[in-house]
């Protein structure tokens, strides 16, 4: 299973620990990550799409064309990159006149997107292409006694008509790929709520994040896990900022799914970069090591 590894912007710059652990843990389940040159920002589906939809679509099409030239489907760790690339692919297939217009622009740099590849989020690759059995086989140290609260975020699942990953009202994909790692997935009230990455109102952002963290705390999780760097920033750095405003202090460490995978495959907490996070929990590290 070979994929063009689409790094995006935020993971390789702010959170390279996720990229590093992906490069170690994904080959162990049969995924080969190919580095293809020339990719740019996907571009991100909040601010850049607000700026100009056509510019957003054109840059996305250039990225898709680069992977297509290499003859590979795209694998990305980021829900934002996934949403942009999968949605752009869908739009170009759905609207031939837009595809023509975009390809006219791409012809200026000798590129063309034919629409023969797909962009996949790593969790989709793990569920659909790798499979639960293969994940289970790679586990050398099951994460027993680890209570995980799952955060789906929005752009992995919605718009479901376009992305077709899972039912956004009752998704199961993360539970499906966490179970073989041996960890216990704990349900909590705010499981499907948003990280508020794109909202521009600070008061609202704090309230959203407070509700989520409060709900996780009540569910007595050891950590939360998620699959998007924007969501990670919202609940790691965001939790520190929220704590500064509050009387009480939340201490809910946030782990990227691939970090959980790496840990279950025998890597130590330091090796998957947990110690680089803002919110740390000695109790969790002890449980993990």
């Amino acid at each position, binding site marked *: 299973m070979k994929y063009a590894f689409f790094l995006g912007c935020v993971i390789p710059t702010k959170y390279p620990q996720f990229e590093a652990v992906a490069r170690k843990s994904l080959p162990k389940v049969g995924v080969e990550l190919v580095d293809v040159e020339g990719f740019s920002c996907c571009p991100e589906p909040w601010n850049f799409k607000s700026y100009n939809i056509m510019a957003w679509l054109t*840059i996305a099409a250039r990225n898709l064309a680069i992977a297509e030239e290499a003859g590979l489907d795209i694998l990305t760790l980021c829900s934002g990159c996934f949403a942009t690339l999968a949605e752009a692919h869908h739009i170009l297939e759905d609207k031939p006149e837009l595809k023509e217009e975009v390809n006219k622009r791409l012809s200026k740099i000798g590129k063309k997107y034919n629409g023969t590849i797909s962009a996949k989020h790593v969790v989709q690759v793990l569920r659909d292409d790798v499979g639960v059995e293969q994940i289970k086989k790679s586990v050398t140290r099951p994460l027993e006694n680890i209570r995980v609260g799952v955060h789906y975020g929005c752009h992995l699942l919605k718009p479901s008509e376009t992305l077709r990953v899972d039912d*956004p009202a009752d998704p199961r994909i993360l539970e499906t790929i966490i179970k073989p790692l041996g960890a216990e997935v704990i349900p909590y009230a705010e499981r499907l709520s948003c990280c508020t990455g794109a909202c521009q109102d600070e008061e609202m952002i704090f309230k959203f994040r407070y509700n989520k963290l409060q709900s996780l705390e009540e569910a007595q999780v050891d950590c939360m896990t998620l699959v998007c760097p924007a969501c990670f920033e919202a609940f790691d750095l965001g939790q520190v900022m929220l704590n500064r405003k509050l009387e009480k202090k939340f201490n809910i460490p946030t782990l990227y799914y691939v970090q959980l995978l790496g840990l279950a495959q025998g890597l130590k907490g330091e090796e998957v970069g947990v110690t680089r996070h803002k919110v740390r929990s000695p109790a969790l590290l002890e449980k993990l090591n």
Partner: protein
Amino acid sequence: MPKIDLDFKKKLTRVEYADFLSYCYQCGACVGDCPSAKLSPAFNPREIVLRVLLGLAEPLLKKDSIIWQCTTCYTCQEVCPQGVRPIEVITALKNIISAQGMLPDGISASVGIIKDTGRVVLVSEAINKRRTEQGLTELKPVPMDELNKIL
């Protein structure tokens, strides 16, 4: 008297995926599940679509417009029985604000970084050092000549 722009609707019906707004029958399903509407009663996707339909969208077309409270979570699109896609209506409105040079400062800065460097985060020496420490290669610059030609 509020300013009524009778042709405003046409601006949006020409935008791909924002062009279903005439199907809206104002049921409010989009409001019930909207996370922003729960915290800020002034943010109301049903009302935003209605304002566009009636040509009363002017108050929405500002740097500090209520539409920037949208989290772009797409829940409104999931629950709409008419396939209206309120979020695409909101994105189209944001594009109009953008064309008038009135994007909020944070968003404008973020867009500027992408237009200048091809990435949404500026790559510094410190970043490449942190990458090398973790056994990763340094990030190469994005071919900006290509991006500039297609934009």
